[in-house]
């Protein structure tokens, strides 16, 4: 029998073990790829182990683990993360998604056209669209809307100011709206003809 099978779990294993599934799900959300997510969780476990002696609140380690995983993600995709967040500013000035759906009317026979549009997006499609966003925006949106973290918590997790987080959420939402529309068009969920009629 192997050494790991017989010895008692360490405190680190006891504290982190219950959060493995959470870490993996968060990693898949953030990077959109299951194999990379597994690697990310392993990176995070190694880094968490090194920082564990300094962890004060061992009863509620989830925020700390989220910060560790997010740091690993930033390190792995540093160049992508540091790409200019301002590049898409011009296109953010376009119409918002609600108005665009109203104007383009992709479902002319529907009396609930906005909700019909959202119904096109199941979980798998939502995560595909997330992967089209700038990584910093995607991280902020996922932490806020998938996991329900407050802006100040996201600031703590990402090491940014609350103002930066709020700006990322705003810009991320604008980008998300645009990408939802582009995705629906490019994948044929709404046809070009309907979209431009």
């Amino acid at each position, binding site marked *: 029998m192997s*050494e*790991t099978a017989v*010895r008692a*779990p*360490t405190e*680190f*294993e006891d504290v*982190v*073990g219950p959060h*493995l*599934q*959470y870490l*993996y*799900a968060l990693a*898949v*959300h953030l990077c959109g790829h*299951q194999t990379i997510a*597994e690697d990310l*969780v*392993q990176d995070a*476990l*190694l880094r968490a*182990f090194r920082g564990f002696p300094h962890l004060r609140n061992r009863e509620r380690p989830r925020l700390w683990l989220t910060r560790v995983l997010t740091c690993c993600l930033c390190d792995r995709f540093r160049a992508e993360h540091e790409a200019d967040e301002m590049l898409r500013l011009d296109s953010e000035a376009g119409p*918002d*998604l*609600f108005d665009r759906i109203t104007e383009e009317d992709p479902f002319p026979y529907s009396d609930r056209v*906005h*909700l019909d549009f*959202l119904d096109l*997006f199941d*979980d*798998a499609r*939502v*995560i595909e669209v997330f992967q089209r966003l700038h990584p910093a925006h995607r991280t902020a*949106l996922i932490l*806020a*809307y*998938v996991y*329900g973290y407050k*802006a100040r918590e996201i600031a703590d997790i990402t090491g940014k100011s609350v103002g930066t987080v*709020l700006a990322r*959420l*705003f810009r991320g*939402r604008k980008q998300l*709206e645009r990408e939802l529309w582009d995705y629906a068009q490019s994948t044929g969920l709404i046809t070009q003809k309907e979209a431009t009629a």
Partner: protein
Amino acid sequence: MIKCKDAVSRLWAYLDRNIERIQEAELEEHLGLCRHCCGELEFAKQLRGKLRSPDSAYQPTSDVRARLETFLKDVGGGRRRKR
């Protein structure tokens, strides 16, 4: 009263409760009179809900879970090696 453009720019912050009290009051006054922005608010609410996909869609398979648990034991036991 604030204009629709200003109202729309505050809707998500309003839903997130990340809004100053004065701005909130201005928005609510606007929403009380503007059907278009009420529609936008409902849409933002639905879209926001759409992003909350269930964790179950991203749970590890039994193989992945077993590998991660083994890795955790290796790390916790001081055997810091990566697969």
